[in-house]
């Protein structure tokens, strides 16, 4: 996966951190201090469409370009810049009854993006 840097319009991972103090949630979420949500953004031209996560590979791009030339006109585009790797978010928080709860929410943090 590629991290977004200024000027690039290709599919990449944009970092986005939600600070729990800033949104007033620090009184009920004990840990962590924030949520590194991140998200995927950018163009997915047809020739980089393929298996998510390996779109950045040069060889895959070449193979997909060949594939795109073959099937051009029938697929009609529609490749998406999507999360290809995610990890869980561990939360320690107070529930409605002021119990302290620890939970791992799967697939909450986007680690890498690719074209579908």
């Amino acid at each position, binding site marked *: 996966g590629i991290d977004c840097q200024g000027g690039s319009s290709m599919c990449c991972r944009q970092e986005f951190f939600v600070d729990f103090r800033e949104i007033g949630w620090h009184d*009920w979420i004990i840990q962590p201090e924030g949520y590194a949500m991140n998200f995927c953004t950018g163009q997915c031209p047809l020739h980089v469409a393929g298996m998510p996560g390996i779109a950045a590979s040069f060889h895959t791009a070449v193979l997909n370009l060949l594939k795109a030339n073959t099937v051009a006109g029938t697929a009609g*585009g529609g490749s998406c*810049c999507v999360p290809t790797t995610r990890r869980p978010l561990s939360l320690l928080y107070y529930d409605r009854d002021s119990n302290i709860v620890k939970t791992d929410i799967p697939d909450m943090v986007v680690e890498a993006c690719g074209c579908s």
Partner: protein
Amino acid sequence: TCRAGSQCPACGGPTLDLESQRELLLDLAKRSILDKLHLSQRPTLSRPVSRAALRTVLQRLHGPPQGAPPEANRAQDYEIISFADTGLSTINQTRLDFYLSNRTAGVMEVQQASLMFFVQLLPNASGTLKMKVLVSGSHNTNLTLATRRLLEVDASGWYQLLLGPDAQAAYSQGHLTLELVPEGQAAQGSVILLGAAHRPFVAARVRVEGKLRVRRR
């Protein structure tokens, strides 16, 4: 998600200004967390939680340090303090016996041990006190010379002598006998006190393998 015949939202779509985009993402993050926790809205704390409870939870959560062996196999370090039983003593020598309980003896490794004793200086006495230390273990009734230490004694008070391997071995087996023989310039002007408030003691740092717990008293 890809919508048929159009680009996916991540690839373009209507452009939002930065502030609106940020609001949208924050809202998305909030909703996502609440949904996953099966909450319709953020909890409102009904009663305060004690800091002690919170600390306990955090300690449990973080657990033992990474790479530490499981609790049952981990060796535990303790400090054991044994007060002396005083044996036959004269003005020239003081005999001290230290006993460990049967439960403790033989299952621990003594890593360091030191003897603490109170020296009372008589008026006008000061100088160097040479302390001869004889040691005997539980299986050996004969006292052997373990060490001779020089102590600078300039005032009445507590003094410390580190005990060597012989004494440590005897102590770990459950019974240690020490005999202190003051020598040198200040020997005639000093007394090792043995009363309740000045009772000599051995302080030992020990390691106990396995599950045995030793409570410090």
